[in-house]
């Protein structure tokens, strides 16, 4: 706790505190200024941040470039959707089922993919994500390509997810829990092994750590939190479809992590905010230049990614100087 307070004195800590505070009272702000639309963007930012934090555990801390993380969106989402479709609307059943399904799938494909290195790992995770994608598209009973409108999870008496503000606060609470977990992860012995294996896995093996098993455990954890994000995403739109796990979404997640700062606790959150802020602000900005340009905002966004990759490795987090942990 005292270290938390001490970190408030640095610009990074102060900004993060202000940011978290603003996110915490976002529903009040959007209500006060009558900007309901902003609340739905805020909800998506928070959900995507949870997914990006989970990807960051293996990508940022572990150096494992998974190009298929959106598949956990799909697994979490489809677990909710399929159960809801069969009349099992209770969140107490849906949510644990979704997280368990994501963790199980992560265990299975992690055990296979972590045997490979480098480009092979990137591609095998992408391929497994495509596999899940096509399975989802082939599930004709659950909408196939078109997807399925679902009813939101029910937590009888506790809270109503149809209420936008309470759903947002639930997502925000889960974001805080994910951040807390990730910070514990990063500083635990377990996390240190994962980070050590990123810089030199041979040495970690020589030190006697079973690197494969550690990585597999991290992969499963990451998948479970990704599944949680998928559950939230399905409830946000009351809709599931294969599109939520298309490979472009996996790419977007990587973009968010790198944009925010890999291997940093709050980086994925900064990244998610920046990503959605760009997505929302680039079209009107370009329209200022000339009417109609805004529609083609990705012409500007694409080269921005190239520039980030070339010149801004540390992401937004590095703007506040080097970290001390």
């Amino acid at each position, binding site marked *: 706790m005292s270290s938390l307070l001490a970190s408030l004195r640095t610009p990074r800590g102060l900004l993060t505190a202000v940011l978290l505070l603003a996110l915490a009272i976002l529903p009040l702000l959007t209500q006060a200024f009558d900007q309901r639309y902003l609340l739905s963007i805020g909800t998506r930012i928070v959900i995507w941040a949870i997914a990006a934090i989970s990807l960051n555990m293996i990508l940022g801390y572990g150096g494992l*470039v998974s190009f298929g993380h959106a598949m956990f969106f799909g697994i979490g989402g489809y677990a909710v959707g399929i159960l809801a479709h069969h009349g099992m609307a209770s969140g107490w059943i849906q949510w644990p089922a979704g997280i368990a399904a994501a963790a199980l799938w992560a265990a299975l494909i992690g055990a296979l993919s972590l045997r490979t290195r480098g480009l092979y790992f990137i591609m095998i995770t992408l391929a497994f994500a495509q596999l899940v994608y096509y399975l989802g598209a082939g599930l004709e009973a659950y909408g196939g390509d078109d997807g399925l409108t679902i009813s939101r999870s029910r937590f009888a008496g506790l809270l109503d997810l149809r209420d936008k503000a309470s759903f947002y606060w639930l997502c925000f609470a889960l974001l805080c829990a994910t951040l807390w977990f990730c910070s514990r992860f990063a500083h635990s012995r377990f996390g240190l092994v994962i980070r050590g294996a990123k810089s030199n896995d041979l040495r970690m093996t020589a030190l006697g750590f079973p690197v494969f098993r550690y990585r597999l455990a991290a992969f499963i954890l990451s998948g479970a939190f990704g599944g949680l994000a998928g559950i939230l995403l399905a409830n946000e739109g009351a809709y599931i479809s294969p599109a939520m796990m298309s490979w472009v979404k996996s790419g977007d997640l990587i*973009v968010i992590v790198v944009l925010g700062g890999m291997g940093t606790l709050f980086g994925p959150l900064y990244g998610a905010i920046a990503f959605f802020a760009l997505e929302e602000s680039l079209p009107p900005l370009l329209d200022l230049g000339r009417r109609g340009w805004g529609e083609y905002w990705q012409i500007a966004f694409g080269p921005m990614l190239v520039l980030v990759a070339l010149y801004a490795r540390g992401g937004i987090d590095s703007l506040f100087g080097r970290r001390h942990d």
Partner: protein
Amino acid sequence: MDYLLLQVLNGVQLGLLMFLLAAGLTLTFGIMDLVNLAHGSLYMMGAYIAWTLIGWTDSFVLGALLALPATFALGVVVEAAVMRRLYARDHLDQVLATFGLILFFNELVRAVWGPAGKSISVPAFLAHTVEILPGVPYPAYRFAIIVTGGAVAALLAWLVARTRLGMLIRAGASNRRMIGALGVNIELLFSLVFGLGAVFAGLAGLMAAPLSSVKIGMGDDILIVAFVIIVIGGIGSIKGAFVAAMVVGQIDIIGRAFLPDLLKTFLSTSAASSAAPAISQVLVYVVMAGVLVWRPTGLFGQRS
């Protein structure tokens, strides 16, 4: 029996198209150590440029022949503008930057050619069928793809195995720094190889166009399959890419052609016909996972 033969030929035709796409990918990875997600964008650009040029020249062959140098030029420009800066970077940077290029190209196409898909019609002189066996007709255009694809594959094999450029390519694939130290102009070599890959991708794109349609993002899904192919074959191996492309082509076509009937034995007709394409897609990834478990560096990849 005839039906089976036709499907096998369709598989060969698809495999050859995939090989053209995969060859450039495996070369750029093998030699420049570059993960180029935007390779599918070159495939798409090849098709769109060909559509425009065919419109101008009013001739499929002339338009297609002019489109090839155009995609070569595009490849060289992309290489000089972006890729060159990425060779020394790690894979994550390459993934990120080339992902950005995909967004750029998809949107560029939407701005220039509009959101609606275009179609290139099969040239008149190929709009008939040929008898590959007595009494077994086969669309001449698909047959032309097999011939062209086979010829280009043979040309590539000759280029890599028998020419000085191929020798440098192979040397570059096994030790890039060494051939630089030996005084080979690496930058020129890399530009050439990238441009060559772009031509092959563009050729695949424009040949595939009459069979489907020219649309935004057409290169993205097929690119993932091309990656699967080079991973199965072993990254950097042309031979591996060829073998894997043939295998994947057969799996895909056979899956589409025969799975529906197989599934109908225990599923409803509509469920079977919707599940079959998905399953045949899935099958490709299952094969890849199987190969990687068995050989983590692909069929013909270098052992580490």
